């Protein structure tokens, strides 16, 4: 009895988050500048973390929880790398003292 209600609520929440992800994908496709697309991709990764959490409730397992943490780290690293690329044009700068050895 309780399980059915929980499943229905989780499925409704999944559908709502999927509609939100569709809106974010619209901004990724249409966005006029590069910063729009990076912001939308960041929000898309965070929404994907929420979807995995909801799926772990729906499939009744606890082994998906570590994937959420991994995905959060990867989304933040991608956002930081893109921000640095947009600002300076390169992501990993080589050391100034080693410039003539390269």
């Amino acid at each position, binding site marked *: 009895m*309780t399980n059915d209600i929980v499943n229905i609520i989780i499925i409704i929440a999944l559908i709502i988050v999927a509609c939100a992800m569709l809106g974010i994908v619209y901004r990724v496709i249409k966005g006029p500048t590069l910063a729009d697309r990076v912001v939308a991709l960041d929000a898309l990764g965070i929404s994907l973390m929420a979807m995995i959490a909801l799926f772990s409730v729906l499939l009744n397992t606890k082994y998906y929880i570590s994937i959420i943490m991994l995905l959060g780290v990867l989304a933040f690293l991608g956002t930081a790398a893109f921000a640095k690329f947009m*600002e300076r044009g390169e992501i990993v700068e080589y050391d100034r003292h080693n410039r003539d050895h390269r």
Partner: protein
Amino acid sequence: MIDTIVIIVSMIFIILGALLSVISAIGLIRLPDVYTRAHAASKSSTLGVMFMMFGVFLYFLGRDHHFEPTLLLAILFIFTTGPIGGHLIMRSAYYSETPYTETTVRDDLNIE
């Protein structure tokens, strides 16, 4: 009895988080500017995902008394890195001269 109450509270948290996520997507579609869109995306979607993860944490706590510390760590991580990511992107967007709307009246970073 207390388990049922905890599960009901977790369901309320999940629904509220999903609605906040939808509000974030609406703001991302309708707002006119890169900076306002990042305002919507970083704040609202961060809070929505934190609500949903706290709901999942309460659900696992209430149904089979399983304390999952990874979810609390994920909530803390999102709370730290979501606004930092938004700040980094907006800073690089300003310095690469992304235009803002015509209704902007004040630019504090523009020192002449």
